[in-house]
């Protein structure tokens, strides 16, 4: 097989990989914020639900979660296609790690900021959204960036439930053409480029956001 053909097949796979990232990432962020905030502020029963979710998804392995959702849910009468299973499993998995990012970033805002906002009589929701969250967001960017890279890497697992992503195409090509060195070399490079693109984007975002914090420092 021509090298050009190999690359074009792999590109098709890369598109699928990017699609999965594009769908799972918003889900992960949504889970991270909602359960991160529940974990911090909600009444105890809700907190416990959040803890179960977080511990379960962090304590078991992403591939098992994916298999469970894809192979076991049909036994409960819930049949979902591979793509949905992939997005749900990866979104929930990365989201569970994200809750800790949200929680940690909020808790790392200096205590004095809470105290000043109480002294100025802000309500608790104003305190969170106007004072604490804008500062916490800046702290969240780098760890969320790392999680986004983890997500890109984790998408390779979906090849094991027959989704035609980058890894799947690579394995398929490797099995048929035997040009394994080139194929896996190119695939690794593809993933690397995607990760570097994310790194670049995250740095830009971080610089942009921290400008609003008066030259990046957090302590005033």
């Amino acid at each position, binding site marked *: 097989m021509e090298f050009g053909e190999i690359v074009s097949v792999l590109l098709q796979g890369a598109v699928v990989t990017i699609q999965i990232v594009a769908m799972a990432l918003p889900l992960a962020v949504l889970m991270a914020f909602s359960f991160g905030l529940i974990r911090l502020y909600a009444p105890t029963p809700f907190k416990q639900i959040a803890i179960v979710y977080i511990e379960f998804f962090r304590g078991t392995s992403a591939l098992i979660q994916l298999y469970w959702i894809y192979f076991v849910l049909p036994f409960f009468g819930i049949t979902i296609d591979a793509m949905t299973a992939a997005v749900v499993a990866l979104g929930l998995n990365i989201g569970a790690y994200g809750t800790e990012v949200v929680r940690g970033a909020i808790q790392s805002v200096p205590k004095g900021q809470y*105290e*000043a906002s109480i002294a100025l*009589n802000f309500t608790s929701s104003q305190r969170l959204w*106007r004072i604490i969250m804008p500062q916490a967001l800046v702290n969240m960017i780098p760890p969320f960036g790392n999680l986004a890279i983890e997500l890109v890497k984790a998408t390779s697992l979906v090849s094991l439930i027959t989704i035609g992503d980058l890894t799947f195409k690579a394995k398929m090509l490797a099995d048929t053409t035997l040009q394994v060195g080139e194929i896996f070399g190119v695939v690794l490079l593809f993933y690397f480029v995607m990760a570097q693109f994310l790194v670049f984007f995250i740095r830009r975002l971080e610089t942009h956001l921290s400008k609003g914090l*008066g*030259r990046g420092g*957090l302590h*005033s």
Partner: protein
Amino acid sequence: MSAPIIEFKNVKKCFGETVIFSDFNFKVEENEIVSIIGPSGSGKSTLLRILMTLEGIDGGYINVAGESLWHMPWQGQHVPANNKHLHKMRNHLGMVFQHFNLFPHMTVKRNITEAPMRVKGVSRAEAEEFAEKLLQLVGLADKADSYPNDLSGGQKQRVGIARALAMKPSILLLDEITSALDPELVDEVLDVIRNLVKEESFTMLLVTHEMYFAREISDRVCFFDKGAIVEEGEPEAIFTQPKEERTKAFLNAYIGQ
């Protein structure tokens, strides 16, 4: 004389096993300026933080402007205050912090206008006009659009004062407002307070280590040690003829420096 604006009755406060106040009583009259001095860990800052509702109490009552701070009437009984009550009570109080605690993601102007606009519903135009006035008062009219991190410590603290004043509190709490500053920046901040009390009358409660300032500005000085007022009186009396041994020892240590 009318009823005191602040009154602590048999207040108890612990941090875990550590007892800060076991049976604390204290009064401040309206428009009185009271300085609290004493060794660290004596409960001085806790007193202010309890008033600002940053710390709860474990017993007793506190009245502020004729109402109970940490309790409210409910079905004929006194019950622990809910958020709504605390929200109402906080309108009487303003606080300036040792470490400034300015909001780093807001300009100086927004630091000052945010609370009046969001909490009191003052219009932007009105809030900004008042902010300008306050910035002039603290000598930082040209810094309205700077961010806190671009200011010196002394400038930050002057913004901190303006921010507290923007809410027009009737009681101002100053918690070691110069302790985090380099010595050469202390006076620019204290001058703001000096001017402030010249122009308007405030009830002011300050915890400070600046003895000369306490002596100059206060109507009354309280010497605190181990969660109790050991000695209190007019500044001249406390500083020139302290009666208690502990006060003498403390003041000597300061003068000795």
